[in-house]
Structure formats: structure tokens, C-alpha cells
């Protein structure tokens, strides 16, 4: 089977790192590069986290720096989930590889321009880089095969009752992406909350006996602890779902709806407003919204990846 070209955009991020491992180890993608965005943590930390992780796992994937601020400039790192470094938990040796010189959006443009086939994008953080790319290179939007993103929620949020963190962090960027006409799979809280890890899963990662497995277990230890401290029992592993949905779409329950990102509402700014009742006149369904997945298979596939990585 041919490997499909893919660019992952993220703000690593514990679950971003798990997603990257899943994507790489599957062997089904030609992972062109990772673009970093400000989100879970400030951009320099995101870049550093990903470089350290790739060096540690001995994965040779180029890394590019993208937006340091959301489109409207507010800066809200998710310290509570991810720690001040953005990747608290495992202690990794300092990175030896370096971020590439090219700007993230220039890299995305170059990849799309030079690719014979359309390219997949998997944004796992705020959509700032994707929107910056779309406004600067509108002529290349048609070369995006599909965007499988982690973000949003059809029926609820997390940071606010209406908004999930990635969309909330940069609603204008999300609005630009969601209205771009590109096929979108939205892996929002509706599905990712089913993709939780529990202590037995973490033990299973550890018991795989690989370095990647131990690394994942350490990441998850911190991640779950962080959620417990916040009084939340859910330890949903959000970002890998966006990759899982690209690998096994038949195993993810999706429905196509019209989704529009709210930037106006007093309480609902950042909400992915999903029309599940066909009430918005004159609008066609534009997003495949994911609602459920087979959690056991999801964990199995993560374990396969952690074994493959060694």
C-alpha cells in the first residue's frame, strides 16, 4: 500500500507526542514533517519538546516552527494539563537536532506544491498555522486531501462549557479553516472522551518492554495525575484519535453535519456550532464529525505502535 503524504501540526503536548508515535509507527504515512504551533505551551517549548522526543525515540522527522501567537494575539498556555514545559513527566535528554529554518507555512506550501498527490493534514493543536497557511497560499488549498483535526465538540467544550481548548485558543483561525471547503474530519470531545486511558492501560504500555512503551507510560502517568488534580476523572487521549481516524476510518463513527465556528457569542466564542437538526437554512454539511470509536482497538493500535518503535 502506498504511504499517504501527511503533515502533523501540533503543540506538543503529551497527547500530541502519542499521536506522532502512532502515525510514524503505522508505516502507512509518508510523514513529511511536523509543524509546531503555540497552544498547550509557548512555541519555543513546543519546538523543544518535539525535538527532544524525536531525538529520544530516534525518529528522523523534520520540525518547523510556526505561529507564536494566535491570530488575535491572546496567549493562554494550558499549564494545568501539560505542565509549564508542555511535556511534564518524563525526563528527556536535551535535543541535539535543530528546528528547520523554513517557516512552518512555507514548508506546508512547499510540500503541497511539490507533491504529485494531495496531502493530508493532521492538526492537533490550535488551527493558527493552518489558517495562516490558507490566507497566505489560497491557491494551494485545493491540494489538501483532508484535514483530520483534534478539536471542537458538537455538544460541549472543556475550557468553557461551549468551547474545546484548540478552537477556543484561536477561534478566528478555526473559522477560516472550517469555512475553507477542505474535507474535514473533526475529532472533538464527543469522540475523544471515549478514548481514555486508565491505569491498566498505562501498565500495559510499560509491560510492552520497549523504550517507547516506557516513555508513553511516563507521559501518561503525569497526564493522568494532572487531570486527577483538576478533579476530572477523564484521562482522554485526544490527539491520537485524529490519526486513528485517518488510519481506521471504518472504526470511527462519524456523521456529516454543517459546522461553523462561533466568534461572536458572549459565552460561546470558540464553539464548533454543529447543526445536528438540519436547522441552518441554505447550508450544506461540511464536516465529518466523529462521535465514537472502539476504545479497545484504539489502545491495541497504540500498543502496536509502541512495540514497533522499540
Amino acid at each position, binding site marked *: 500500500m502506498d504511504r499517504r503524504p501527511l503533515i502533523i501540526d501540533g503543540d506538543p503536548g503529551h497527547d500530541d507526542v502519542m499521536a506522532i508515535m502512532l502515525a510514524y509507527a503505522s508505516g502507512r504515512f509518508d510523514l513529511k514533517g511536523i509543524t509546531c504551533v503555540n497552544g498547550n505551551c509557548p512555541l519555543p517549548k513546543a519546538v523543544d519538546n518535539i525535538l527532544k522526543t524525536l531525538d529520544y525515540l530516534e525518529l528522523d522527522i523534520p520540525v518547523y516552527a510556526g505561529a507564536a501567537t494566535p*491570530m*488575535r494575539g491572546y496567549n493562554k498556555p494550558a499549564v494545568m494539563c501539560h505542565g509549564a514545559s508542555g511535556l511534564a513527566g518524563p525526563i528527556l535528554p536535551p535535543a541535539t537536532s535543530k528546528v528547520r529554518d523554513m*517557516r512552518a*507555512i512555507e514548508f506546508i506550501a512547499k510540500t503541497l506544491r511539490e507533491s504529485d498527490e494531495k496531502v493530508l493534514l493532521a492538526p492537533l493543536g490550535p488551527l493558527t498555522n493552518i489558517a*495562516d497557511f490558507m*490566507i*497566505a497560499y489560497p491557491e494551494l488549498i485545493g491540494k489538501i486531501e483532508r484535514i483530520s483535526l483534534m478539536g471542537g465538540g458538537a455538544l460541549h467544550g472543556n475550557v468553557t462549557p461551549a468551547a474545546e481548548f484548540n478552537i477556543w485558543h484561536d477561534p478566528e483561525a478555526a473559522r477560516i479553516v472550517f469555512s475553507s471547503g477542505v474535507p474535514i474530519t473533526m475529532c472533538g470531545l464527543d469522540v475523544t472522551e471515549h478514548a481514555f486511558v486508565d491505569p491498566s492501560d498505562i501498565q500495559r504500555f510499560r509491560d510492552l518492554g520497549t523504550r517507547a512503551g516506557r516513555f508513553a507510560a511516563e507521559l501518561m502517568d503525569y497526564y493522568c495525575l494532572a487531570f486527577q488534580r483538576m478533579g476530572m476523572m477523564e484521562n482522554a487521549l485526544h490527539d491520537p484519535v485524529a490519526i486513528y481516524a485517518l488510519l481506521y476510518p471504518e472504526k470511527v463513527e462519524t456523521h456529516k453535519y454543517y459546522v461553523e465556528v462561533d466568534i461572536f457569542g458572549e459565552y460561546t466564542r470558540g464553539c464548533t456550532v454543529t447543526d445536528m437538526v438540519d436547522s441552518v437554512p441554505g447550508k450544506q454539511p461540511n464536516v465529518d464529525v466523529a462521535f465514537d470509536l472502539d476504545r479497545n482497538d484504539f489502545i491495541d493500535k497504540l500498543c502496536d505502535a509502541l512495540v514497533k518503535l522499540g
Partner: protein
Amino acid sequence: MLEKRPLIIDCDPGIDDFVAILLANSCGQFDIRAITTLGGNVLPQYTARNAKNTAAMIGLDCPIGRGAQKPLMHEIDTADYIHGVDGIGGVELPESDRPFDERPAWDIIYDEACKFPGQLEVAAIGPLTNIAILFRKYPEVVRLIKKLHIMGGSTTTGNHSPYGEFNIWEDVLAADIVFNSGVELRMVGLDCTRQGQCDKQVWHQGLQKPGLVISKLREMMAFDPTQTELYRQHRGIKPPKDVENYVPGLPDAVTMAGMIDEDLLQCQKYYVMVETTGPLTYGWTMVDWNMTTRKPFNCEVALKVDTDRITELYHQMFEFYEGK
């Protein structure tokens, strides 16, 4: 010390953009590095064509670049009811076959900013979409640009809506990005430019001078948008323009005049924010007069025009183009 001030004009010609370009060229102070365009007053293919033809007609040899086809977040909404569908009231400029620059507007501006670090001045007299894309793609360019002068906003009333001046209204996200970018910024709003009319006699005498360029300006002045169907749909039925006594308000030209003559505009620094979501007040450039937000000043706001000085500039402009 550079002999001439490097300048880029980012615009959507546009009748008043046309006059701004004429002024910039005739004053002799600027090394006009490029004219970049975007959709706004009218569709982008017209603004690009008008810029190209205007430059060729006045002997300006710089690159003409094309930029944003639409505002950042939504479809374009033109002011063709003011400028005519083609942007210059149906006036035919000699068609130039010079090709457009291949680079998008934002890349052109960035390249020039790098060539003239800390020296390049930019006059943005249309919606701010190109400038916003420039700042998003090259955030560090704000340090390279000496000053950005915008025709946009108003400290009092708008034109396209009660408080919304057209350029800001057309792309509020772009305006928000620009006002928060940290670039050295002057805002020349409608409340200021409305004061900047040329003396009637000077204007009409100037318009009668011989030459191709002035004849085209004369034709544009004779264009009466108020009698078109487009205008009627927006504003209802109005009496026809009194062409003989008409002196235009030319917001873009006033902005350019303020760049040419530093004493022409009286300015004061404030913190200015752009309303981007309120349905009635969308596009309003709100000046924090009483510093209630406690945010640092981000903008030099132009408040008053010296009408004698601007009349003198127009007078010099007409003299320059006489017979050309």
C-alpha cells in the same frame, strides 16, 4: 541617508487611491518601490488593473503586485456603489501591457522591507488584508517597517455603517491584527479626512489644466455615482452631484498628504481597538480617549488637517501634471 524615502502603496483603486498615487509620485520625495493591490472598493481584478494603468500613465516604473482576493474570513463586499463597478467610475485609462509582479503583495512588501530595514514606509489605503497576511507570515517585519500609515477607521462616524469606515469594516480581523501587531502606526480616519478638502477654486482651476492625467481625473470627478442603480439600492434616491461646485473628499489622498508634509496632520497617540463582533458596531475603531483600558498606546491618531497645507499640495500636484 537615503536620498528618497522608500515607499510602498497598498491600495484598492479606487478614485481617491488614484489621487493618492498621483500625489505620491508628483511630490518627488519618494522612491516608490511597489504598488500592491487587493479587492476592496471593487473586485481585485479591477483594482490591480487600475493600479497598473495608473502607474504606466504617470510614468511610474515600479512592480505592481496583486494580493488578497477577499477578506480573511469571508467573501468580498465591495463599495462599487461609490466607485463604480470598475473602481474609477467607468473612466478608461490607457491600457498598459506591463505584466504584474509574480509575487503576492505580502512577499513584495517583505522583500522591500528587508532591502530597506527600518526605512520602508507603507501607505495602506485599502482594507488591511494584505498587511495582516504580511504580519502573520513574517511577524518580525514589524521591526523592519519604519511606519505604516493607514487610511482607515474614524474617531466619530463611519461611512459604510454608523461607526464603520469601509476599509476597516471590510476586514475587521485584518484590522485587529494590524492594530495589535506592534508596528509603528498612524491612523488617518474619516473624521480627520473629511476636513481635508482642497480649496474650491484651486481644485477647479487645477482640474481645467491640459494634459492626459488631469483629463482622466476630470472625468472621474464628473462621474456621479449617486444616480446609478447600485447607489440607489444602498442609499436611496439622492439629488445629482453638482459637478461644477463639487470638491471631493479624498480620504486616501489626505493620508498620503500627511506623509508628504509632516505638519499637515495634527496627531496624538492613543490605544485604539477594533470592534470585530458586535453586530451593530462592527468595524468601529474605538479610541481609548480616557485611557480606561490602561493599555499602552498603539497608534498615532490623526485628528486635524491643515487645509492651507493640503490645498498647497494639490496645487503643486496640478502644476506637476500640467501637460503630462
